[in-house]
């Protein structure tokens, strides 16, 4: 048994994604890097984010359908349990049929981290890091860092409460400063290092191994809504594992900023 698993692991690791097709390839926006202080840090731990490109939209059900048609190992019936638990694509009727209830233009969800990672690699891309994602997601329509704006935070908190947004088509929320859509308002998104910050299941702990996080926690002052929105994202990330498939969790892909931009269709109005 373990040999089989090892083999398939090996296969997956070794097998390069050669089929770079136009299907599923989508426009990207360039995000100009910078320094930001993440939730879990303090001034000393400001994080540098280099330039990168990020997909304008989350990957959709129809994008993902095209992918599984080419990569049979990611079909619902063939996927290895090690890489995706029993909920993988649970709303799809079959391997290649979305069925009537699944909206083709809506973000694909119920995909594991392994699946998302493999998808991006097959596009010649990768998953964004958590810092990249958080950096791009600080923006509202007009500002690169809108985290201090009350309305921006209320919008995010509002989404956390709105049911079934995973059924809405991509592009249905706002276009942010970088030209990227739907970072808030449709689904949660995988990041390559989603589990690198360990928020314990017990969120009220004192000052042990999660000390940094809880400095953040202590900073939640009377008017600081900003951390509440971020807290919920980190709490969500801490609750998942790489083979989980969750109804409200999708993904999009990223590329390093120093790669030649002509490889990817970069949205013209995206860079300012």
């Amino acid at each position, binding site marked *: 048994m373990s040999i089989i698993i090892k083999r398939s692991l090996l296969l997956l690791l070794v097998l390069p994604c050669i089929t770079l097709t136009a299907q599923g390839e989508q426009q990207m926006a360039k995000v100009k890097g910078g320094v930001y202080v993440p939730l879990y840090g303090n001034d000393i731990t400001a994080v540098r984010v280099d330039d990168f490109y990020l997909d304008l939209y989350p990957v959709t059900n129809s994008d993902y359908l095209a992918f599984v048609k080419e990569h049979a190992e990611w079909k619902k019936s063939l996927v290895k349990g090690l890489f995706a638990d029993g*909920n993988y694509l*649970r709303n799809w009727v079959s391997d290649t049929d979305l069925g009537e209830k699944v909206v083709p233009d809506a973000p694909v969800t*119920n995909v594991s981290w392994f699946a998302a990672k493999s998808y991006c690699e097959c596009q010649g891309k990768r998953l964004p890091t958590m810092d990249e994602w958080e950096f791009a997601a600080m923006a509202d329509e007009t500002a690169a860092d809108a985290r201090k704006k009350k309305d921006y935070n*209320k919008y995010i*908190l*509002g989404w*956390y*409460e*709105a*049911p*079934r947004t995973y059924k809405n088509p991509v592009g249905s929320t706002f276009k942010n400063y970088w030209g990227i859509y739907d970072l808030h308002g449709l689904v*949660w998104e995988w990041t390559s290092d989603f589990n690198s910050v360990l*928020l*314990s*299941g*017990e*969120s*009220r*702990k004192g000052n042990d191994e999660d000390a940094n996080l809880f400095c953040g*926690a202590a900073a*939640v002052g*009377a*008017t600081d*809504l900003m951390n*509440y929105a971020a*807290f*919920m994202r*980190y*709490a*969500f990330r*801490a*609750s*998942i*594992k790489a083979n*989980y*498939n*969750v*109804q*409200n*969790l999708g993904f999009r892909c990223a590329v390093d900023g120093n790669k030649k931009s002509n490889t990817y269709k970069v949205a013209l109005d995206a860079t300012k």
Partner: protein
Amino acid sequence: MKAHFVKNIGRILLMSGLLIFLSSCINQDKKREYTDAGEIPVNREMLAELTSPPHVPTPVGKRLAKKLIVKMEIREMEGEMVNGVRYIYWTFGGTVPGSFIRTRVGDEVEFHLQNHPDNKLPHNIDLHAVNGPGGGAESSFVAPGHEKVFSFKTLNPGLYVYHCATAPVGMHIGNGMYGLILVEPEGGLPPVDKEYYIMQGDFYTKGSYGERGLQPFDMQKALDEKPDYVVFNGHVGAMTGDNAITAKVGETVRLFVGNGGPNLVSSFHVIGEIFDRVHIEGGDRINDNVQTTLIPAGGAAIVEFKVDVPGTFILVDHSIFRAFNKGALAQLKVEGEEDKKIYSGEIEEGIYLPEGGGVQSMPATKGVVEAEIPARSLEEQMKFGKATYMQTCFACHQSEGQGVANAFPPLAKSDYLNADVDRAIGIVLHGKTGEITVNGKKYNSVMTAQSLNDDEIANVLTYVYHSWGNSKKVVTPEMVKKVRNQ
């Protein structure tokens, strides 16, 4: 003297004989008493009965400690806070408060926490009945579409709160993620006739009390601890009218009362009843003859009383504006024979005119927000009017407009109401003090001026005129405006 001595010896012999007899009884019945609850062995497996409020599961009675399997599903779902106001609740078991869990000392509870796949957020559970880090929160942190299992042994009898403890904790509790778990002592609590489950909670919405539509959670109000709603069992009217809890005269009633918070403490009181026994803070200590018992946020109490006379008894948070203006009000309806010795009812009525009486006015804020959507049809007027009625008029004039004898005049088939519509508008606008005669009966009390806008008054009066055998007049905002400007 001698005889006395002999008698005493006889008594002693008798007593010791009894003692031997008794102790042999004990030896037969109870094989072993456990001083340490942790050592109580469990006997078989059992799926726990969970109930929605206001109901509680069957008492444990004399059953042995068991391995008790609890399956609790978390749902994020839309519900109604008060007529016309919708809210996204986060729930344990689909209700606020969450399902009631009933255990006994020594049970080994195997807890399955299931997070429904449609949910957005990870959740967990902290049960105050657990001895262990986080009260289970650490071991139960579960992503949507997954299940976590952990187990604990109930060591301390009492009534305990459970709640979600995922960041941000206040928001999870504020959206309704709390409930009660009861740990009964060995042999169970003494039997009573009726048991009910009530839990208070405060809610914070973007719109103020009664503002229609889907209302999102308001973090700022929660931080400021200024709730729009303070309610029993999750929403306004959860236990009034047809949903009132009931008992019969002479019955003993036990209420399991909790307070989920997230912010306020409750001054729990039943109007017209005295608690015979209160398990203070849900623990072992019992206080007798209590009028109002304080229930901390994240705490509970067991209150017991015998109902002696029939009538409707109002359960309130005696921080009283919460009861009459924010929803913290429930009803216990008691049926049965009157007992004039215990409560006479009104004996006679006289006239008493103190100085300085006058019309009291409800505080009106400047620039009252017009109702978002003005009613377009009679049907809509009825719908909105009913909502306003249930929020504003119901407490005195009652659900069927019947009023309260000798205190609040009826609106149903009311000659006074039907005689003059402008007068009725004027009373809602400006209040009314002094004696009036309605359907042949005299009333002398005070109605405060209501801070409703023209639309709301038009709707509520149209609703009243179209209900309970009244004259089916339609009141328009223009008519209200006319009276307002007089």
